[in-house]
């Protein structure tokens, strides 16, 4: 082919430059694509769940009961008998206070943790110098409505806490390493907080018979957690082994004795007037079982949790009582 008219050096250079750019660009993109694992490739894998419980101190009681006073002084007295809040929370800590805040019921129904118990725990944490105190739960009913109706949102905020609702706080895939729960979506504050204070309420439960501290960890799960009911005892033991609280404060100011976990009839709610606190979640649940007239060893998950080294059932029968007025 003879040199066509109108061909000039500038045109040849421009065309070759464009060709190089297009081919180089396409080739580079292809190379990037071939090396990339893609948009949906997993990230770092499931998060680990940190241990936030204290080493056992034989000089201190593993759990105590507080009686005889208004709610706030009972909470203060129980924590005081354990060595004071300073043993559990220090300056700069980010504390998740995890109540049972799952149901659209007012406080007197006993379906949720009493707001006064939550508020006093928050106040103690603030006094101990916590940087942030977060109150949150993954509710069953609409979370914002529950937070309001339970009275916990207002009480916790007044006491100086921030409220974490599931939609805002979000979830992270976490490795539970359990017998049936391997990985699961977990409420983010339950993974990121430096201290974990479980503040359950003692209630009747249709499936497990008792819900108190260990069953309260159901409330940090997202996803299709209704699957847990297929083997609820093993699931709760898995949760109890994974989530080791720094401190547990049990609300037994009033106890739902029938129709749990939702309730709805005041006749089924018995005034008990007690608060318990401790570092042994199993002992506290065993004590709660007795309040409902249940034999702790008959609660499937308590035996399993004891077997995993979470705590002692027998210790629940030997709790000392402190007087809030004293």
């Amino acid at each position, binding site marked *: 082919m003879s040199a*066509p008219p109108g*061909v000039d050096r500038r045109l040849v250079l421009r065309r070759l430059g*464009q060709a190089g750019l297009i081919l180089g660009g396409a080739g580079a993109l292809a190379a990037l*694509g071939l090396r*990339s694992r893609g*948009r*949906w490739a997993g990230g770092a894998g499931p998060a680990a769940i940190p241990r936030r419980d204290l080493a056992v101190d034989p000089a201190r009681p593993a759990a105590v009961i507080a009686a005889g006073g208004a709610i706030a002084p009972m909470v203060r007295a129980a924590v005081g008998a354990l060595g004071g809040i300073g043993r559990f929370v220090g300056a700069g800590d980010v504390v998740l206070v995890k109540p049972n805040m799952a149901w659209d019921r007012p406080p007197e129904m006993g379906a949720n943790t009493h707001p006064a118990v939550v508020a006093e725990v928050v106040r103690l944490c603030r006094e101990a110098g916590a940087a942030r105190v977060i109150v949150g739960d993954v509710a069953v009913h609409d979370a914002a409505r529950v937070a309001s109706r339970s009275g916990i949102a207002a009480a916790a905020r007044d006491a100086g806490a921030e409220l974490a609702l599931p939609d805002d706080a979000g979830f992270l895939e976490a490795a539970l390493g359990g017998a049936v729960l391997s990985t699961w979506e977990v409420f983010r504050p339950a993974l990121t907080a430096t201290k974990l204070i479980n503040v359950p309420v003692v209630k009747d439960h249709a499936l497990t018979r008792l819900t108190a501290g260990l069953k309260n960890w159901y409330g940090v799960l997202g996803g299709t957690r209704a699957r847990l009911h297929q083997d609820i005892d093993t699931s709760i033991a898995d949760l109890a082994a994974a989530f080791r609280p720094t401190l547990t404060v049990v609300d037994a100011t009033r106890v739902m004795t029938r129709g749990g976990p939702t309730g709805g009839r005041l006749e089924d709610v018995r005034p008990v007037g007690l608060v318990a606190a401790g570092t042994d979640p199993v002992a506290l649940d065993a004590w709660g079982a007795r309040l409902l007239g249940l034999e702790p060893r008959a609660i499937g998950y308590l035996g399993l949790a004891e077997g995993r080294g979470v705590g002692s059932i027998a210790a629940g029968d030997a709790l000392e009582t402190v007087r809030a007025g004293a």
Partner: protein
Amino acid sequence: MREAERGGIYWPRAVRRIYQAFFLALFLAALLLMTAEGIRRLPVAWLFHLDPLSAAVSLLASWSLTAALAWSLAIVALTVLAGRAFCGWICPLGTILQLASWATRRLRRGPATEHNRWRPHFALKYLLLAALLAAAALGAGIAGLFDPLSFLARSLGSGLSPALHQLVGTGGWRPRIFIGAWLTGLLFLAVLVANRWIVRWWCRALCPLGALLGLIARASIARIRIDPARCAHCNRCATDCQGADEPFARHRVAECHACLNCIAACPEGAIGFRAFAPEDAPHGGVSLPRRRVLGAAAAGVALVPLFRASTLSAAQPGPLAIRPPGAQPEAGFLATCVRCGACVNACPTSALQPALGEAGVEGLYTPVLVARQGWCEPSCLLCGQVCPTGAIRPLTIAEKGWTLEAGQGIRIGTAFFDHGRCLPWGMNVPCIVCQEVCPTSPKAIWLEEVDAVGRDGRPVRLQRPRIEPGLCVGCGLCEAKCPITDIAAVRITRIGESRETGSSFRLGNRGQLP
């Protein structure tokens, strides 16, 4: 040599026709061979791998590229060298539409040169490309709906070929039946018939792959060029022009299919296909106002969140979005599937069907398993082998795991019994076909022996089938073989599929038996 004037043969055009025939035959053979026994190892998806649109969409939508799609760089290189030669020499849809235009040439009124004038609406394909690439950037691989190779493959595979079977019979095979075959076929026929009015209307006005290649062709090294000194302005160069690129005026290189008909038609020998010829029309001859391109891209961007805000989307796939074994998780699947229907075409039992509503709007023409049509054959791996993009990953028998010990392999769904329709459950009539055909070992369907009472009061010994969810792989054999042949008494839905971590309804680790 100029055959128009001198009666000789213009060889480059003859060579082009040989290329077109060859690639069309290759494409049709690939579609046929996908279904055949014994020749499964041929690279039947190779032509799809040449497609730069598929590669671009896959890259944008999934941020990754399956190795085979790197072949598309060859077409990019070809386009840089010689413009849209793919459209004129390789594309099997282009060849078919060229034939259809030729066959209907006498139906068009007026001189042929007027048929091949550029029309402003031919710029539509660039706007469609902008919209589809924008949608891809948000993770929606819907460009495959308009990709010419995908369009042709699914039109033939699940539109025209089953219709042909209905017309002429299958020589004893079970005729294949597909969801929406009428629509799939009609769309293709509409594109075919459009040529009666506008030559290669799809290629000129609609084809997003043509648009992508047109953008590259603006920089092509070799291109059509008229020597103005020799041009007699007879316009005969437009007589058989495929791209409506108007070589007689300011040649639109982005529209030119490099078919070379103009060279053959020129009585003056004024036209050549030349390296480093200057550009006649600015921007390849198509002006794309930035406002329009951005508007089209905005439309593509708007579509995706609307899809995602709907049920039957990646966040909430429908119960019938049962994907073939080896399919990526739904979001990645919707991003990388090019809707070519190769898997649907290859599936030996017709279990894989093109989705119309089953997988949402974003999943239009993606494959779903319809167990009423067929079942997923336990030892078959064809769909993953023919998938051109890796949307369905090629599996080994061991990975699929349906012929080995049950409970460890891939699961695509779960079977559920409808007790009212099941003979032993609803009518106290013995049956258990489902349990017989259940292919896992041990069987996922087990039998509960019960002593029931018949209507006449006499005792009836029955075996009532139940599902063991830890063993069920969702193959659909039970549903396919259930004697209740309209709405089966046992049916598959996608819950329990192993590709989605969130779809398990059973507690416990995967594969663990209760």
